[in-house]
């Protein structure tokens, strides 16, 4: 026997059976209930399953099939084997898109998560943190299109940002969206800003979930605030940071709407062309659904490889409380 919170005695002995179930025919009666419950269960999950099949599974299968075919949506579909893949892997635009996408991920994920950790730590003890959380979270619940359009105005040569930089440093106002060297940085700034609030909330929750006894024990051992952060809080937060990095990396690999709105398609000289934009351009700009699907399969494989690398690396950097036990 164990003691449950609140002092109630818990037992491993099974509760008394339902008298109805032991009555003649009771077993059949219970099965009928369960069958009916199961039927209702199917009915309730049915819409979700149908939605998933229509909007996720079917496009996924269609994309896999189309990757091996030539089809423009209007004419007959013809099989071309691996031709779409070989052509895509030799396509400079796809290679450019992959480089741009990886740059966005490499820039935005560490900076975005790092900033979020710093802000979460700073907010942890703050009494007015709710106000700050609302401010940080506002971009997360704002439409990406609206966010991109607002930043588009700020990034204009005569916009607030460029004019401020020009006034402070006495240089010509930078053309964030027209200069190929700056356009990708502009996309990264917007991406970091948009996702910051969500990561701050997640990290703050993680920090608040660390057992006070662990912190107290470290303090008794003489750990200062910095040592506490470096040796206790961050290691205990690392599983959450790892989870967020996986989500953020996958999200960065799928960057599309910010690029599409902010930099008018793919920016100057394809400076902000991402893989998903490349897929969109091939499919809906050029009606080349075969190469477009092949590029999406390549993106899937790239995502799997990067996620696998992240999982491999986590053994060195992620600290689980169970491991310590």
């Amino acid at each position: 026997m164990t003691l449950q919170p609140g002092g109630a005695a818990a037992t491993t002995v099974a509760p008394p059976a339902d008298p109805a179930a032991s009555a003649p025919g009771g077993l059949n009666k219970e099965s009928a209930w369960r069958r009916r419950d199961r039927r209702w269960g199917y009915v309730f999950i049915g819409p979700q399953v149908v939605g998933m099949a229509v909007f996720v599974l079917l496009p996924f299968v269609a994309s896999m099939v189309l990757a091996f075919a030539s089809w423009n949506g209007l004419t007959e579909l013809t099989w071309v084997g691996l031709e779409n893949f070989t052509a895509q892997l030799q396509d400079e635009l796809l290679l450019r898109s992959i480089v741009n996408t990886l740059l966005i991920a490499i820039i935005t994920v560490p900076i975005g998560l790092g900033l979020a950790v710093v802000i979460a730590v700073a907010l942890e003890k703050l009494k007015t943190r709710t106000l700050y959380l609302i401010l940080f979270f506002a971009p997360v619940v704002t439409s990406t299109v609206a966010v991109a359009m607002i930043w588009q105005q700020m990034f204009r040569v005569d916009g607030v940002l460029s004019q401020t930089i020009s006034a402070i440093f006495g240089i010509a106002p930078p053309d964030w969206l027209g200069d190929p060297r700056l356009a990708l940085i502009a996309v990264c700034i917007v991406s970091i800003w948009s996702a910051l609030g969500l990561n701050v909330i997640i990290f703050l929750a993680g920090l608040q979930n660390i057992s006070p006894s662990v912190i107290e024990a470290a303090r008794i051992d003489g750990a200062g605030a910095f040592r506490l952060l470096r040796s206790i809080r961050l290691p205990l937060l690392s599983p959450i940071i790892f989870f967020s990095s996986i989500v953020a990396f996958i999200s960065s690999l799928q960057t599309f709407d910010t690029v599409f709105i902010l930099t008018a398609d793919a920016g100057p000289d394809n400076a902000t062309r991402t893989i998903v934009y490349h897929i969109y351009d091939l499919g809906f700009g050029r009606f080349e659904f075969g190469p477009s699907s092949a590029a999406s399969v390549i993106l899937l494989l790239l995502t799997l490889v990067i996620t696998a690398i992240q999982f491999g690396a986590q053994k060195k950097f992620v600290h689980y409380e169970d491991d310590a036990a």
Partner: protein
Amino acid sequence: MPRANSKMRRLLAVGAASALMIGLAACSAGGGGSDSDTVVWSTWGTPEELTRFEEFNDEFMKRHPDIKVELQPVASYADYHSKLLAQLTSNTAPDVFYVGDDKIGEFVDAGVLAPLNELMESEASQTKPDDFFPGLFGAAQKDGETYAAPNDSNPDVLWYDKEALAAAGITEDPAALAESGEWTTEKFLEMNDKLAAAGLIGSMYWNYWATHWSWVSSQGGTAYDESGAFVGNDDPTTVAAVDTLGEYFQDGTFVVADTMPEGAGADSTFVTHKAGFFSQGRYTIGTVESAGVAESYDIVRWPTPDGAEAPTGVAASYLAINGRTDASEAAFTFWTEFLSAEGQTFRLEGGGNAVPSIQGADDVVLEADYPAHAQTFLDMRDIGFANHPGEAAVPGLSTDISDLFLALYDGKADAQGTLDAVADLVADKTGK
């Protein structure tokens, strides 16, 4: 926990299923009218244009009370064709629809558009094939059959700013030179040199097919031969013309309008007298009028080595009839009235931003007496050309060619290399 009431569960389940069905139905909504007296048509456009189209619908339904017309607008040109493609694939496309000049070839090749020759020659037709200016059909015609006709057109004329020219010490008027047959390439480049020396932009161009192929054709070069094969790289005149074009872009005398920054874009540069010439269509009237500087501007055709006029590019969009429409008769009635001289006059009068594609509607261009040489729009349309059918038949090919030219303008390639790359690209994409 008490079991949920069985009636309530049933209600919830029905509600969930209904929501799903409504959602799925919403995703597949749209498409042509399924009866023979309803014509659904689609286009992109600005709010002002769409309002004008609705007014046209109302007028049309007054004339034809037996036909109901519904406009299915798409705000963005970028989204329009992907939606149309999805509708055509799922057999829910409108009965009549606009098609852009960069997509028309693909739709013609796919066989989804109704053939129009016989209908256009019929008694019900208000748009005989000969009524249209032949150079405007482009990829809308194939093997002698017509699959769409131009809604209207926009020849890329050279707008020029008299104030900017004067500031650069230029005393000759380009339009007057053109009238006397002295509007030569040499004169034009000389004016651009003076503008650059005065710290102004010489000329601004959008980086698309009409710019590079207009320059080539006006300089006597040949980009494509009659079979649709690209021959520009083997033609010394074309190579020399493109070389000059690249040189002027590279030294900053010519500027690519697409790459100018937001807030200091081509339109604002032009209306603030910082550029001499700007290659654009009739819609520029709105830009200079809204800036209150219209009196400073006029238009001229593209210069040629000998000063004589030469064909140059004319932008156009097309109106087609769905090959699977259930309302073929009503659809053609709408199609022919929309494109007729009366239809185009109705759509373009009072601030219209294009040039009619059909004979008999020229007054809408000349009525306001602006710009002073408005007749140039009509002259250039009469002899101009739409994008080359081979190039227009492959979605994205025009954009890819423009990207190659941008590399030339940026100094990353030379003229011969650019034209060789274009030839390889065209051969790869079109098989010619």
